[in-house]
């Protein structure tokens, strides 16, 4: 075989990369299904991970399940699936059903949260999770736990004051936080050049006294390598890292968006050629880890998982109207 084995080099076994491939596809298929359900009028809203699965899954694989904390942003379906959420959980949230573990149907899909999985509840105002991640890292450190806090956000959101204030706090206290920026080139309709004047979001790290790295977010192995290094630094008490994963949003911002007004079809088609799932698939095939048959089996398995999850969620009960009054305060 010609192509060199990059995943073992990065410390990933063949099984692990197959696992990664599974999660990337699961996220993609769930996302695609949600769009169909939305267009069919069955769910009111979708916000997508499509195009960012490699960044998300690659990043999550470097974290320790059940130990580390994640404070993901709304596109991070790939992250929360790896951290333990299920297809069913995703669909329960999409259908806003009572059983939705994220919010009991109170929040839109993409607003992840699960104490069981150390996923801190997220909201809509962008970047508020960044100081939260710093607080989690501070608290864990105070309690002598060797926990790493991962938080993600888009490149547009890196312009919020909370990014700056949170990153600076983490830098001063050398906290085990990983600031993971998923740069998909747009903030809804606003392109990079109208969001940022810097070469790279990663350039901002020096202003906080910790390293910033820019990586190819379409390559889960490259993402994993950078994340692993950041996680190791954090565990050694050497402080935060800012990672900028270069990706592309393959679909509109959300089911309410129409991206034709701000980017050309050619641009989108061009980006699809670089679809992280296709690229990874080719790599795995080159490596002889995956073949057409295995791939088919995996996709069929995912297909039925998505079907099952959809059916379950669609038939699950809504919350009781009066339950809206619950949990404003603790007892």
């Amino acid at each position, binding site marked *: 075989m010609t192509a060199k084995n990059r995943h073992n080099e990065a410390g990933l076994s063949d099984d692990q990369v197959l696992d990664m491939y599974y999660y990337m596809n699961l996220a993609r298929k769930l996302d695609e299904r949600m769009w169909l359900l939305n267009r069919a009028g069955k769910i*009111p*809203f979708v916000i997508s991970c499509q195009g960012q699965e490699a960044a998300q899954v690659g990043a999550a694989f470097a974290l320790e399940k059940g130990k580390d904390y994640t404070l993901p942003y709304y596109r991070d379906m790939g992250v929360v699936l790896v951290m333990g959420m299920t297809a069913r959980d995703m669909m329960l949230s999409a259908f*806003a*059903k*009572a059983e939705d573990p994220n*919010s*009991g*149907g*109170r*929040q*839109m899909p993409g*607003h992840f949260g699960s104490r069981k999985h150390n996923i801190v509840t997220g*909201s*809509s*105002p*962008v970047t508020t999770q960044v100081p939260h991640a710093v607080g989690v890292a501070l608290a864990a450190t105070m309690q002598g736990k060797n926990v790493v806090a991962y938080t993600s956000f888009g490149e*547009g*959101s890196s*312009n*919020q*004051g*909370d990014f700056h204030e949170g990153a600076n706090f983490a830098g001063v206290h050398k906290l085990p936080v990983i600031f993971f920026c998923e740069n998909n080139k747009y*903030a*809804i*309709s*606003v392109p990079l050049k*109208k*969001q*940022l004047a810097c070469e790279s979001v990663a350039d901002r790290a020096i202003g906080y006294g910790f390293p910033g790295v820019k990586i190819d977010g379409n390559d889960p192995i490259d993402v994993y390598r950078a994340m692993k290094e950041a996680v190791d630094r954090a565990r050694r008490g050497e402080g935060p890292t800012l990672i900028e994963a270069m990706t592309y949003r393959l679909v509109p911002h959300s089911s*309410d*968006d129409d991206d034709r*007004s*701000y980017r050309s079809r050619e641009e989108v088609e061009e980006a699809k050629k670089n679809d992280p799932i296709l690229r990874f698939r080719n790599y795995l095939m080159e490596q002889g880890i995956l073949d057409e048959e295995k791939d088919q089996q995996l996709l069929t398995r995912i297909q039925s998982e998505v079907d099952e999850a959809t059916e379950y969620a669609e038939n699950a009960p*809504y*919350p*009781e*109207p*009066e*339950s*809206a*009054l619950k949990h*404003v305060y603790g007892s």
Partner: protein
Amino acid sequence: MAVISYIDAVTMALREEMQRDKNVFVLGEDVGVRGGVFRATNGLIEEFGEERVIDTPLAESAIAGVAVGAAAYGMRPVAEIQFADFIMPAVNQIVSEAAKFRYRSNNDWHCPLVVRAPYGGGVHGALYHSQSVEAMFNSVPGLKIVAPSTPYDVKGLLKAAIRDDDPVLFFEHKRCYRLIKGEVPEEDYTIPIGKADVKKEGSDITVISYGLMLHYALQAAEELEKEGISAHVLDLRTLYPLDKEAIVEAAVKTGKVLIIHEDNKEGGIGGEVSAIIAEECLFELDAPIRRLCGPDIPAMPYSPPLEKFFMLNPEKIKAAMKDLAEF
């Protein structure tokens, strides 16, 4: 007179003011080629160019703060906050800066700034795309808060806000954007900020409201007419500072007052309205001053039954009006 939608009245007012005064410009997230996520700035960038229709970086405090600076210099910025829920990061710039510019400089500087923000629910917007945030700002002297209910008022009040020499928070009910249509003159006109408006004359009970709820109240009032109950309906239009005279006048008219808003009850605008009445004309009342509002929960949940539970509707309002009439 053309019948247009609430949101088209927003766009019309913006376009006319930008044509009228080259110092007027809009800035915000996605207001440019996208024309705003609700399309309120639709077509403006084509007509006025990206210098006067600025897609800003995603940072509300900068949107407000840069607008404050530009206003101080002599421009008339109209800043769009994509959803009222996202005005929170800009609170310091609005409350500490814009609202106090004139006062703190002893009238040497002032800040003619408009902050537009779509608010309110009933659009499956969930906790963070449905909020009513007006009550956070109605204790801030130096600010004005406008919340129109009809396309006619939208055009007249938005123009007045843009020409105002002080900062104005202009809250647009996003459910009204396409639901509410009405006659709007092509001509230029303004409506004075600070003046409430009687939207329906009546003699049995007085309903005081604004925004989407005002329309629900009018629907309920219409049905109640058939049942022989005549409701007097006042549209506050300006939420801060309140039009005390109009409120007292409306209360005295029937002696039975029901205040209605979508926002939650405790700490809502209705409390101040009630307090004004209880202070100015208590002895002219024939019933306790009632308030019908959203429940005191953090915000409107996403799941349809929960959202429905939160939102008032013509039925709930009609029942409350009837109950008061029968008091």
